[in-house]
C-alpha cells in the first residue's frame, strides 16, 4: 500500500511513529501531482521546493525531539481564495493574476502553527462564485471519477486533489455549498463549520455574512483533525466567535447514543435524482440500524433559499468587490481617458462573466428604489429560514439529506444557464443563510460509478456532534474507502 492510499490520520500516526518522514509524504504528493494533475488540473500553483523545505524543517525538529503541532508534517492544499504570504493568491481571477499577499490568512497561520506542510494552491470558480470550476479564469478542473464531468465548486481543486489522492487534506471555503457540493460530487468528506468558528481574516471576501473556511479529507477523522487545527477566536475578524474549540480529533470516534435524525420531506421532492434519493434513504436506514431515531421535520421556507441567497450574496459581493479598482492591487487597464474610465475598464477586463453578473445583480438589488424590494426583503426571509431550523433543532439533533440533486454533471451542461447552475446548490445554501454547520460524506455511487453524498446539518457550534454522527455512519460503511481509477 502506497502513501497516497492512507488517510491524513493514518499518515499522522506514521509520521509520529517515525515510520515515514514528512519529506517522503510530501514527495509522494508532489509525484502524484506530476502524474495526475495534467489530466485533472486541480492545482494552480505548486512550489515544490518550498513544500520540501517546510517538510525537511519539520523532520529536523522531530529528530531533535521538539514538541510538534497537531498536523506535523502533513501536506495540506489551499484553495486559491486564502491569502498565503509570498505565494500567488489569485482567486482564479485575471483581476488578481500576479497578486502575492504580504500576509497569511488566519487559517493559514493556524496550519503553520500546527506544523502542516503547505503544498500548493488549488483551482476554483473565480472569486468563489460558481458550482463547477467552469468560472475559473485558468481552465476547468475535472472530476477524478469521470474526466468529462465537473468536480463541483467553487472549491473545485481542493476537492478533486483529495479525491485523486494528490493531497491527503485541503482547505476550501463555503458561501452557499462550495465545500459540501464538491465533496459530495467527488466522493470525499468536506465540512462547512458554523459561521464564526474559523476566522475569515485573509479569506478573500465574496459574501462576508455567509463565507466560512473548512476542511476536505478522505474520511471524517481527518476532517475533524484539520477543523480542530484551524478553529478558534481571532480578534482580527470581528465575527470570529470566542468559544473554546473542542478536541474534535479525539471525540470523533465516540458513537452517539439516542441520536435523533431529522429528514425533510421537501429534500426528497421533485428535482432529486432517483439514484441519489435511494442512496440517501438507505444511508438513513443505516442510522436506524445503529439505533438512531428518525423523524420528519418541516423547513417550510426551504423553497425560498436560492432566491434569498442570490440577493444577499450578490449584494454583499457587489460591495466587497468594489475594492478591485486598479489602484491598490490587481489588474489595471492599459488605456483610459480618466480615473472613472480606469476603474470601469480595469474591472471590465479583469472580471469574468459570472463575477460581472453577480456584481450587476447585487448593484441592482442595492440601488435606489429597489433596496427594500430586493435586499431588505431577502434579509427578512433569511430570518424565516433560520427560524425554521431553530424549530427543527428543538426536535432533532441533526438533519440528514442529499448534498446535491444529482451526481456530477458533464462539463458545459449548465455553463450558459446561470439559474440552472444556481439550483445545484439547493440543499446546501440554507446552512449559510442560517449560519449552521454542515458536513458532506460519501454514501453511495450511481450505476455509472459517480459518487453520491449525504449531508448532515446541525445546530450552531455543534460540529462535535455532527462529526461523531458522520463517523458512526462511516464506520458502518465502506464508501469512503473507494477511490477513482486514474
Amino acid at each position, binding site marked *: 500500500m502506497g502513501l497516497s492510499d492512507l488517510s491524513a490520520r493514518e499518515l499522522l500516526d506514521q509520521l509520529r511513529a517515525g515510520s515515514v518522514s514528512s519529506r517522503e509524504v510530501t514527495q509522494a504528493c508532489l509525484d502524484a501531482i506530476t502524474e495526475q494533475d495534467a489530466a485533472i488540473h486541480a492545482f494552480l500553483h505548486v512550489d515544490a521546493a518550498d513544500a520540501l523545505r517546510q517538510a525537511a524543517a519539520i523532520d529536523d525538529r522531530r529528530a531533535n525531539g521538539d514538541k510538534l503541532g497537531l498536523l506535523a508534517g502533513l501536506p495540506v492544499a489551499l484553495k486559491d481564495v486564502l491569502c498565503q504570504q509570498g505565494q500567488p493568491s489569485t482567486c482564479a481571477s485575471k483581476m488578481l493574476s500576479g497578486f502575492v499577499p504580504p500576509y497569511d490568512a488566519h487559517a493559514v497561520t493556524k496550519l503553520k502553527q500546527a506544523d502542516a506542510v503547505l503544498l500548493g494552491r488549488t483551482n476554483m470558480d473565480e472569486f468563489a462564485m460558481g458550482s463547477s470550476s467552469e468560472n475559473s479564469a485558468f481552465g476547468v478542473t475535472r472530476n477524478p471519477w469521470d474526466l468529462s464531468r465537473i468536480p463541483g465548486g467553487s472549491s473545485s481543486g481542493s476537492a478533486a486533489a483529495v479525491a485523486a489522492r494528490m493531497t491527503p487534506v485541503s482547505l476550501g471555503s463555503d458561501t452557499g455549498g462550495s465545500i459540501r457540493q464538491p465533496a459530495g460530487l467527488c466522493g470525499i468528506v468536506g465540512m462547512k463549520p458554523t459561521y464564526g468558528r474559523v476566522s475569515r481574516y485573509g479569506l478573500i471576501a465574496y459574501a462576508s455574512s455567509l463565507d466560512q473556511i473548512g476542511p476536505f479529507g478522505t474520511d471524517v477523522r481527518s476532517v475533524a483533525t484539520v477543523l480542530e487545527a484551524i478553529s478558534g477566536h481571532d480578534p482580527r475578524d470581528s465575527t470570529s466567535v470566542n468559544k473554546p474549540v473542542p478536541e474534535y480529533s479525539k471525540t470523533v470516534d465516540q458513537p452517539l447514543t439516542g441520536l435523533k435524525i431529522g429528514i425533510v420531506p421537501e429534500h426528497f421532492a421533485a428535482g432529486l435524482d432517483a439514484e441519489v434519493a435511494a442512496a440517501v434513504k438507505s444511508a438513513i436506514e443505516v442510522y436506524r440500524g445503529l439505533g438512531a431515531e428518525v423523524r420528519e421535520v418541516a423547513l417550510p421556507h426551504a423553497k425560498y433559499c436560492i432566491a434569498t441567497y442570490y440577493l444577499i450574496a450578490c449584494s454583499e459581493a457587489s460591495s466587497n468587490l468594489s475594492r478591485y479598482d486598479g489602484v491598490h492591487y490587481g489588474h489595471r487597464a492599459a488605456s483610459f481617458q480618466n480615473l*472613472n474610465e480606469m476603474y470601469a475598464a480595469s474591472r471590465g477586463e479583469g472580471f469574468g462573466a459570472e463575477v460581472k453578473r453577480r456584481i*450587476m445583480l447585487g448593484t441592482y438589488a442595492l440601488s435606489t428604489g429597489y433596496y427594500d424590494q430586493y435586499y431588505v426583503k431577502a434579509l427578512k426571509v433569511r430570518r424565516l429560514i433560520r427560524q425554521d431550523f431553530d424549530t427543527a433543532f428543538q426536535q432533532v439533533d441533526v438533519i440528514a439529506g442529499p448534498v446535491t440533486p444529482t451526481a456530477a454533471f458533464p462539463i458545459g451542461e449548465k455553463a450558459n444557464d446561470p439559474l440552472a447552475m444556481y439550483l445545484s446548490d439547493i440543499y446546501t445554501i440554507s446552512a449559510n443563510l442560517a449560519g449552521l454547520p454542515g458536513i458532506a460524506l460519501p454514501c453511495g455511487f450511481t450505476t455509472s460509478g459517480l459518487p453520491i453524498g449525504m449531508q448532515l446539518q446541525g445546530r450552531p457550534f455543534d460540529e462535535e456532534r455532527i462529526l461523531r454522527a458522520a463517523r458512526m455512519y462511516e464506520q458502518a460503511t465502506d464508501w469512503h474507502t473507494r477511490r477513482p481509477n486514474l
Partner: protein
Amino acid sequence: MALPLDTVKKVAGLARLQLTAEEIETFSTQLGGILDYVAMLDELDTSAVEPMVHAIELTNVLRDDVLVPSLPRVEGLKNAPKQDGRYFLVPAILEG
C-alpha cells in the same frame, strides 16, 4: 422579463463595470430571468419580520485600543499596478 438595456447600462455605470454591447444584451436576458425567479419572495408576508443581517448577531465587538505594528509601506505598495515607493499613483482627477 428582460431587464431594459438602459437599466443594464445604468447599473453597469453604478458598478464601474465596462461591458461590451454583447454583454449588455446577455445580462439583460439573464438578469431579467433571475429577477423573475427571485420574485417568488413576494409570496411571503414579511411585514412583521426583522431583517437578519448576520447569522451571529454580535454587536459592538471592540478590541483594546493598543497600537500594534501595521504592514510596512513597502509591503503595502508592492502589489500596486503603479506606485512610486511612497504613494499609489492614479491619473489626475482635477483639471488644470
